[in-house]
């Protein structure tokens, strides 16, 4: 479980897994990853104001993601999308008692520093916002607050982990209400993990080269058969059945963005998706929670999109 961090044995104590200090230590990789472990089986909901945060908490969300506009509005309105107004984040922190996450632009470490100073519980270095750096992601090891990052494939996931991400979410295509890209990304990540577990030791060098990922992480996956951090799913989920689908494919929790507050009845939809994330293999319960929800968000065909958010990130 702590293998990844062995790789960092040349780095200061605080970057390794379990702290070797017998005194109280904060911000260690294990403590950062620990919160992601606690969110498993749950639903993290995008919210843009305290009222929506309250609806999300009332429905049973395990955390909320504070952002300026939900992805479907970003897509519709265009313009540069940035970190949220600190006042809005504080308002949400004062309204709910569940963890509050917030998004920073890819590579925008100053936004991340501000979010850490605001004491958010997780930072999402997110392709949904307009990237601030076309080559570099944030050095996430430098922070006490943990980070989640998106990935479309295994190589991207491992590069983010090597930069210090403590949770990976498959990207999907945010703001579309269309689950097809989330499924593609999940299947790609899980499929490649499966192949790596069957590869021989010589082939692992080529896998690392093809994936553009650190060899020790590839070797670790060959041994454990899973990512070294929790893997959640995001991007285009909009019904209880979508949550069940991606959880059955191997996602350990789900992020729902526009899918809740762009549906006819957000409170009902939110509750139903929470139930679906728990009972994802129980069709009887899924029938019950899927009934009478009104319309889900309208949704978009991927082929009609001008901007594919998932292509942001390197």
């Amino acid at each position, binding site marked *: *479980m*702590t293998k990844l961090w062995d790789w960092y044995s040349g780095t200061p104590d605080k970057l390794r897994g*379990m*702290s070797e200090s*017998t*005194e*109280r*230590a*904060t*911000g*260690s990789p*294990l*403590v950062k990853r*620990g*919160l992601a*472990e*606690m*969110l*498993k*089986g*749950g639903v993290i909901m995008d919210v843009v104001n305290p009222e929506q945060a309250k609806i999300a*908490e009332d429905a*049973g*969300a*395990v*955390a909320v993601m504070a952002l300026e506009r939900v992805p479907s509005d970003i897509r519709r309105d265009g313009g540069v999308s940035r970190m949220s107004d600190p006042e809005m984040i504080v308002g949400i922190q004062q309204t709910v*008692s*569940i*963890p509050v996450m917030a998004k920073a632009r890819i590579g925008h470490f100053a936004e991340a520093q501000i979010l*850490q100073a605001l*004491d*958010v*519980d*997780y930072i999402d270095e997110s392709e949904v916002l307009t990237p601030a750096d076309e080559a570099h992601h944030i050095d996430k090891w430098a922070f*006490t*607050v*943990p980070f989640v990052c998106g990935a479309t494939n295994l190589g991207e996931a491992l590069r983010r982990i090597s930069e210090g991400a403590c949770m990976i979410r498959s990207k999907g295509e945010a703001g579309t209400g269309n689950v097809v890209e989330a499924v593609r990304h999940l299947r790609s990540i899980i499929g490649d993990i499966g192949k790596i577990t069957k590869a021989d030791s010589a082939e692992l060098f080529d896998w690392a080269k093809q994936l553009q990922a650190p060899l020790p992480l590839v070797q670790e996956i060959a041994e454990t058969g899973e990512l070294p951090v929790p893997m959640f799913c995001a991007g285009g989920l909009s019904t209880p059945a979508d949550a069940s689908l991606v959880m059955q494919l191997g996602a350990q929790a789900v992020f729902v963005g526009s899918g809740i507050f762009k549906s006819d009845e957000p409170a009902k939809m939110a509750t139903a998706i*929470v*139930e679906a*994330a*728990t*009972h994802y293999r*129980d069709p009887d319960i899924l029938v019950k929670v899927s009934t009478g929800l009104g319309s889900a968000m309208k949704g978009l065909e991927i082929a009609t999109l001008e901007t594919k958010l998932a292509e942001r990130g390197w």
Partner: protein
Amino acid sequence: MTPTVGVLALQGAFAAHAAILEQLGVSTTEIRRDAQLDAVDALVMPGGESTTMSMLLERSGMLEPLGARINAGLPVFGTCAGMILLSAEVKDGRPDQRVLGAIDITTRRNGYGRQTESFESDLDIAGLDAPFHGVFIRAPIVERVGESVSVLASVEGDAVLCRQANVTVASFHPELADDDRLHSMWLKEFA
């Protein structure tokens, strides 16, 4: 006969608990509906989001049957959110948050603060020879301990591991510590 240990799997770190228990040679089963409780000899209530778990317990109709089984002596081990759910009283919870009242302690939710205050620290645990590494994630703080409760470990004066009859609770996460001694100690209480 080896016992079957149920792991409440509504949400949270249930898989990590199950993995440690399986390593210790007991069979585990995930519990999401009340009927599944009938097949277990003991239960782990994992960490996660206690408000979410409280709602899922109520909506699934499992809250009452679970409380009855614990009252009737079912051995149960609750960590973090599990500790909150088993306690007699929770502060800083939601107004509609339910607790089972199975152990006479009062907890304050997220009593150590937000995630940047989450920490790890070595603990001396009564019954273990060497220190145990405690991982505290937005952990509850125990504010009151009833007379019938034994405190097995403390951090800076606050109880972090408590037992009362068939109920053991920890405010930290033994399932994340790569150390099976605490699970093993718990199993010995009934197996």
